């Protein structure tokens, strides 16, 4: 397609490159490591650019890039942890603490939420960040992560419940709540 329509190729490249900040935010929400996020996004963009001629529907570009990013992330986890079973991978919690980047959180609340997100199993973490940060529909998230919509809904439900609990527990830890009897 890019052979016959060089201009389409040019604009597609611009649009793919323009997605960098959003991909970076998402990658960071998944791994909480800015260097790794940059690497993942670079890899995803490179793949996206080399394959941009495969993209028939320009409107689907965002989802398409998110799913490339998801694949890069999964590949990374597989190499690092030597996992072969995806379902096992989904249940694992990575980097429970958000680490030194905490200091970048402009406000305490953001840091608290990130800490809570970091305790979620990866499968839940990916769903809640795609739904909340990117505001994608359940169907889109299901396509990107290649799981049924029902699974998205149950993961989201567990993620929000866990998040709520961990934010509340954290507050309770700080609050001088006194139980009587």
């Amino acid at each position, binding site marked *: 397609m890019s052979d016959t329509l060089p201009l389409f190729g040019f604009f597609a490249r611009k649009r793919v490159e*323009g997605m960098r*900040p*959003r991909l*970076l*935010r998402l990658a*960071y*929400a998944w791994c909480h490591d*800015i260097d790794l*996020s*940059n690497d993942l996004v670079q890899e995803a963009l490179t793949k996206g650019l080399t394959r941009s001629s495969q993209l028939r529907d320009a409107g689907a570009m965002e989802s398409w890039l998110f799913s490339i990013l998801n694949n890069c992330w999964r590949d990374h986890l597989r190499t690092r942890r030597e996992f072969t079973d995806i379902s096992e991978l989904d249940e694992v919690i990575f980097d429970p603490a958000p680490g030194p*980047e905490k200091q*970048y*959180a*402009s*406000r*305490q*609340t*953001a*840091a608290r*939420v*990130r800490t809570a*997100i970091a305790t979620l199993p990866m499968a839940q973490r990916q769903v*809640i*960040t795609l*739904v*909340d*940060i990117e*505001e994608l*529909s*359940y169907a889109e998230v299901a396509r990107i992560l290649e799981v049924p919509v029902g699974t998205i*809904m*149950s993961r*989201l*439900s567990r993620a*929000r*419940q866990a*998040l*709520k609990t961990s934010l509340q527990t954290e*507050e*309770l830890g*700080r*609050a*001088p*709540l*006194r*139980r*009587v*009897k």
Partner: protein
Amino acid sequence: MNKSVSPEYLNAFADGELAADERERAMAQLETDPDFKARACEARMLKEQVKAAYADIPGMIQSSSRTRLNPVWPKAVAAGLLLITGLGSGWLMRGAIDVAPEVDRLAGLPGGYQPISLSAQVDPNKVLLHLDSSDPHRLSTTLDLAEKMLNERKGQRQLAIVVNTYGLNLLRQDTSTEQARIHRLAEEHPSLSFIACGQTIARLKREGVDVVLLPETSVASSAINEILNRMQKGWVYVRV
């Protein structure tokens, strides 16, 4: 907690995933079911919190072309609160929820706080401060703000401090670190009221906590209802 509404349904509502007819039913339910309203509101706020938590990430260069990236915290959360509750009353459809220009600079309110009103009918002399955190700094800031804003419009201004969730600590005898000051403020300013969320109190009691409130406190059925009722009457909302 109301078991009649499943978490999946609640999420679908908060995420805009319900079909049109279901959505209409849910919005009607907001009006009649305070528990559903509170839970929907909570779900919506959680969503906003997650989004805002990643608004700024390390090393992110703000692109000038595509900035869906810059929600200011208090505004994002307040907007989330209003969005879900406001939908039920149809305010959003009329585009009435806004940061009203006439209250953009509320007398006595320092920069960094976002006054929000329903622009149809707004009275800058009626101000509602909402506190939902037990952070000691925010507790004392709430009282600082209240005092400053009352002194700015002496005798003309009505001010309500509405607390829920962990903000309730401000008004509980066994947790409040500001009892003396609250007492003094209440004596000096008859137009100042302290309002606690009835649902938070009920929840704490269910958990076995003995809730004894300061004598200056009155109790509303729920903080969200109180906030919305007052805003409908022209009060300006500020989240501390």
